[in-house]
């Protein structure tokens, strides 16, 4: 049975995240999904980020947050059942699927996932890609189209262009407003 997004949201609403998951607990919850499906869990090295620079530390912290939320979703909703079911049928190679997953969800923060249903849906769909799961009522093509629509990373890059243009247009609008105000003031002075 595929994952029902509506049921998923209902289950999640009933199980709010009380405190962040620790790193060992996060890994344990994710690896348990593989174990329940009778598969060997991915090696811990696949989840780790090497390096000690400030940038790496930030990335590591963000990944810990993202996976912490994912662990919560797995532990408290039917996402785990669908993941287990999918892994039992066919298990994509985690060595390939997980890095792609991390790259795709890289810009998502834990707060975004918690507060924004679209970002949450994106994370869930990306995870279903990792385990080969499906969304209820959708063909693979529809799921792919929806995922493209939800792709925050690509939206962000295109959105950057919109933001740049917005700045220039805002300047232009402010100038027009100033001119209109000046015209109005001049006209009022003449009337008075």
């Amino acid at each position, binding site marked *: 049975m595929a994952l029902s997004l509506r049921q998923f949201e209902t289950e999640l609403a009933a199980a709010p995240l009380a405190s962040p998951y620790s790193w060992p607990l996060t890994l344990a919850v994710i690896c348990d999904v593989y174990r329940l499906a009778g598969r060997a869990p991915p090696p811990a090295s696949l989840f780790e980020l090497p390096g000690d620079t400030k940038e790496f530390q930030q990335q590591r912290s963000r990944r810990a947050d993202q996976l912490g939320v994912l662990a919560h979703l797995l532990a408290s909703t039917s996402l785990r059942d669908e993941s287990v079911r999918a892994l039992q049928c066919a298990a994509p190679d985690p060595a390939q699927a997980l890095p792609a997953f991390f790259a795709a969800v890289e810009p998502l923060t834990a707060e975004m996932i918690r507060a*924004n249903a679209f970002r949450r849906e994106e994370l869930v769909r990306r995870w279903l890609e990792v385990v080969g799961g499906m969304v209820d009522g959708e063909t693979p093509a529809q799921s792919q189209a929806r995922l493209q629509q*939800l792709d925050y990373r690509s939206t962000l890059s295109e*959105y950057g262009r919109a933001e740049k243009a917005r700045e220039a*247009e805002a300047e232009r609008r402010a100038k027009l407003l100033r001119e209109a105000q000046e015209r109005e003031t001049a006209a009022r002075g003449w009337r008075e």
Partner: protein
Amino acid sequence: MSIDAAQIALAWREALRLWDAEVTLSAPEPLETQGRADWGGSEPLAYIDLVRRQVVVNYPQLEKIGAASSLTAVYAHELGHHLHFPHTLGLAAALEVLQSQLVPGSTPLTNLFFDLQVNEAVGRTRAEELCAVYRGFACALDAPMSPLFAYYLAIYEELWGRPAGELMNAETVTLMNEKFDGWRADARMFAQTFYALTDTYLQFVYFCSRVVRYLPDPGQELGKLPFAGDVPRPDLDDYAGALEGNGAIDRALEEAAGRGWLRGGEAQDGNDPLQKLNRLSGIPGSAVLPFRSALVSRIYARLVERNLVKLPATAREAPDPFLPTTTAEWEPGDPLRSIDWTQSVLARGPLASVAPLRRELEPEPPSAEDLEGVAVEIYLDTSGSMPAPDTAVNVMTLAAQILSASALRSGGRVKGIVYSSDFEESEWMLSEESAREYLLRYSGGGTEFPFASLVENAQNRADVLRVVISDADFLANVEHGPIDYSHRPHKPLYEPLPLLLEGISRSRLFVALLSLGDRDASRANKLLAPALRLPNFRLERVSNPGQLPQAAARLAHAFWGK
């Protein structure tokens, strides 16, 4: 195919079920049964009249755009406005005021904003029907689609997971791509951010910050949009409340600035309700000036209430108007009951029905014996040192309003003497509203206290409390008096101090409520020394003009607080 009664009844039931609401609303009416004045002359697809709680739908137009099967969604959309978005017109007014701060010079966008909220809820189950309405409307446009409408439709395409460009034609997409770089990603980001926000004010700030890019130049119309104007406009009280602002709006602005949605300057704004009013461009109705004046009056009324230390009593009930006054032309928009048909027929003959005459009624003023309270004359300085009261809060005007409201509530009467280079004097006023309106007069010229008028008034009535509200200019007036410029060297026209002393001695009490700096304080003591020796003179000094309303409130409390 035409929509029949059975379809209407079924769609109406389903729309009510969609909102899971038990509301007592009459069944929807077709547009053609409504008068043109009722829907503002344009041809709406549907609207809800919140006064009559009546949904009205333009069935022929719905059929023309090929969306007859979307009837349930259309009803549900209108019901959504009634039940949740905006829920109260006070919120609509607050958002309009906020918009004037964020997007000055634009026509109100609140209807569009509420439509986004309603359609998300309706679209959870009836997105296809709403798409049919928008698609049909877009096809029926007789002019190129506006960028705002295209962006707006793209948001729905993203929200409902429709293919890009499904709700608009290819030319529009091409034009948008050429003119607005990254607009599609903008719409996608909007849909995925806007609906995740839980605070309405924050949603609105975000909405304004995004759509501003697609708006026409300041002063131009938005262009045709379906469901535009289907929410009624707020009334005077809604606007007056909204202009005061509230903490939730400030928090939303702060958060929006923190998220980078606002450019510098939009979030920082004074809390002066009059300055907000000046920016408000979408005041409803054709009678903008009377509406604005009434609104200014309401703002001061609220400020007076806030500044009164203790309300002596509730406002006196205005007597019912019954004294007939002269007639004037009746104009569309005037109350029908104000038409004097007898006089209209006598004056106009057969043309009476085409051009009737209106006769206003006035209340009979109560006789002096019926009044228990004290009579107060307020001499209000309206020189250019203070702002015009309808552009920013004029604290002198506000102080006068506080005194006037307090006196009237204690059963007294008020006369206003508004002076600058010249002066105007009112009749004795008994209602708060007339006093408030009179004291909102402003000249903005020099300052010449009307000593002659003071003496004349004092000679006519001695049992009057006289209050002058001014600043150091009053001292200059007492020192030099009006100057006769026709002679060289210039000479004062008369000695003002004796006139002032006569005015004081013939008053029940004379209070000079003056804003004086420290240097002027000692000058006042010296200049007004003869007056200070009189038992019925009081000098109330505040060190800056902002303290005048509080000082007026303290005075009012001392006079009428018990």
